[in-house]
């Protein structure tokens, strides 16, 4: 299996073999972070630009560390007041970064499809670090990597994703990645937070938390993004915790060694209790650590990919 893609835009596009290649590559990079000198020269002389249109600490820092451990030069552009307001188009921003001879743009954007659009217009690599409600491929990859590390396989696992599925890019990427690798995925949320026709993506839908936990080998607990609830569609925080919050009591009825994941940042006492977040089933901090290896793998692989170069020269 040879990697050919210049971009990583989502897991929906990837084959099972490509997913496995990323995971295997991440596996080989993981050891770098435990060395005394945490660096390999794989991307020496390459420039990675983190272009973030949404506030993010965890993902941006993780990408920055990943790039630096590969010996790349890293530039961070945080556009918290979006460039839209300054008048520059996303494509113009991208072509300018390309003209600066950067090699990879890692982009977080509040609009679904922004990474795909940018990638279409650039010859350099684009890695999607989260676009709107669409995909967050590296988050799902690190979730899957962690699961595989813990349970030795993905094929045949029962994984439940709990929370605001409708507005979650993490959920979508996890669904694509997990189902392609043979896991059985259940999504669980109140009806208003389940998007239409999602069962056609190959998942089972439930509105009952106990049902979602009952046979699960792992549970991925999504962050309730109350700050994004502009439509008043969300249940209230306490109400949500009562109905869907992952507590020790609920967990006691699940498999004893169920894996508990969360993409962070945590809302303790909203979607997950502190007891569970810090408990023996939780792998939340291991996910963070694994994020580095996964992102190293992605940055390394896309730097090798040369497909679909933009038709016109820039």
């Amino acid at each position, binding site marked *: 299996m040879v990697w050919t893609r210049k971009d990583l835009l989502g897991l929906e596009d990837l084959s099972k073999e490509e997913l496995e290649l990323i995971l295997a590559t991440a596996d080989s990079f993981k050891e770098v972070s435990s060395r005394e000198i945490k660096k390999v020269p794989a991307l020496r002389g390459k420039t990675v630009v983190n272009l973030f249109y949404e506030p993010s600490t965890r993902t941006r820092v993780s990408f920055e560390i990943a790039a630096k451990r590969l010996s790349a030069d890293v530039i961070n552009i945080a556009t918290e007041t979006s460039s839209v307001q300054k008048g520059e188009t996303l494509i113009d921003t991208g072509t300018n970064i390309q003209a600066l001879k950067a090699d990879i743009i890692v982009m977080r954007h509040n*609009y*679904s*499809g922004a990474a*795909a659009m940018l990638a279409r217009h650039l010859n350099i690599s684009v890695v999607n670090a989260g676009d709107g409600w*669409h*995909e967050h491929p590296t988050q799902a990859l690190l979730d899957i990597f962690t699961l595989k590390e813990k349970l030795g396989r993905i094929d045949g696992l029962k994984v439940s994703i709990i929370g605001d599925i409708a507005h979650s890019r993490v959920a979508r990427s996890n669904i694509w990645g997990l189902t392609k690798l043979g896991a059985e995925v259940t999504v669980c949320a109140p009806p208003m937070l389940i998007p*239409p026709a999602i069962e056609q993506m190959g998942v089972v839908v439930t509105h009952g938390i106990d049902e979602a936990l009952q046979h699960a080998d792992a549970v991925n607990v999504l962050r309730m993004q109350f700050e994004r609830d502009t439509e008043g569609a969300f249940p209230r925080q306490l109400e949500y915790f009562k109905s869907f919050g992952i507590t020790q009591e609920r967990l006691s009825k699940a498999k004893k060694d169920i894996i508990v994941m969360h993409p962070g940042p945590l809302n303790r006492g909203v979607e997950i209790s502190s007891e569970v977040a810090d408990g023996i089933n939780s792998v939340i901090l291991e996910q963070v650590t694994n994020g580095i290896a996964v992102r190293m793998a992605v940055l390394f692989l896309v730097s090798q990919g040369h497909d679909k170069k933009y038709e016109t020269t820039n």
Partner: protein
Amino acid sequence: MRLLIKAGRVVDPANKIDAVTDILIEDNKIALVDEQIKIDTDLTIEAQGKIVMPGIIDMHVHLREPGREDKETVASGTAAALRGGVTTLLAMPNTTPAIDNPQTAALLKEIINRTAQAGVLLAGAITKDRLGKELVDIPSLKKVGVVALSDDGSSVDSDELMFMALKRAKREGILIICHSEDKGLSAQGVVNLGLTSTRLGLRGISCESEYKRVERDIKLAEKAGAAVHIAHVSCRKSVDIIAKAKQRGVRVTAETAPHYFTFTEEAVLGYDTNMKMNPPLRSLDDLAAIKEALHEGIIDVIASDHAPHTENEKEIEFVRAEFGVVGLQTELSAAVSELIEPGILGWPGLVEKLSVNPARILGLKKGSLCVGSDADLVVVDPQRVWQVGKEALVSRSKNSAFLGKVLKGRVEYTIYNGKVVYARSA
């Protein structure tokens, strides 16, 4: 001036003609339709193997003038029309300012008289500024030549106001065209609601937002006894509602656009903003329903909903990009490829949708090739295959859903008002 079109397959369903014959044009009228016309002419077009049909009457075009001349002008839009075989078009009133008073309508008429290359008819707004609050003065608009009313781009939300508009329109003998959309249901949506909106992580536009309003508009028209025309029908449920209304004798007609019988929502999966339009591309089942409705005559008209937008408004994030696509130059070829080729429509059926029915609905003495009628004709090569590219589009905007697509059937000549106004060179 004498022009002879020789030995083409003349498709003239208004006169029940579908035969290889000659057509003689003298000045701006059709002078003779007969086999083997032998006469001295100024110009002869050899049309063996070609289709000769009345010029297309496109009931749904946005020319953008006045106000957004960067997107399109009367001159550029009508140039595109001629290349697509469209000799008469109805210009939608959602310009800046809107065509909601006789002064603005007269201003546009003056621009048309000066710059139009094809026939341009005016639609006026139903309400002032298309805000759905206050009705326009219909008689004064009629007096300056407005032939239909539409708040296109918006629907009149108030049932009372819409009912009153329909009653007055009936009294004045003018057609109301409905952009049937309940924005309360489609709010902020950008693609069809369903698996596609879920996969893309975008807000959806339900079929319900369309068909509920179609249902309402028909009900009000029925109550008012007025004629009503439903624009850009995109889904099966709307088709079903229109079919039932026709059965019980409501004076309703309907149109669809080529993108609704060519593409499904899957075309949006790469976030191609040239696949973003309102109503959105729907499911395969909806596409099948549109084709059936064309076959059965439930949908009367194919119109382009030509909606030019600049690259600055399209080559941006999908959510922010404008709705709409250009279509004047591709509608005939799209219809040949998607309707004639698979046998959904024969040539007479297609000409009805493109010329005969629009003329009837708008009350025009066009869409016919009988002796004495206006010499607006198109000569089409039904076999010619071409790939749609930006360079072929003469509209100021290039936002076509068909870019890169290979289509069958191409306009060879367009004759407007007795003159050859377009002859294909490449």
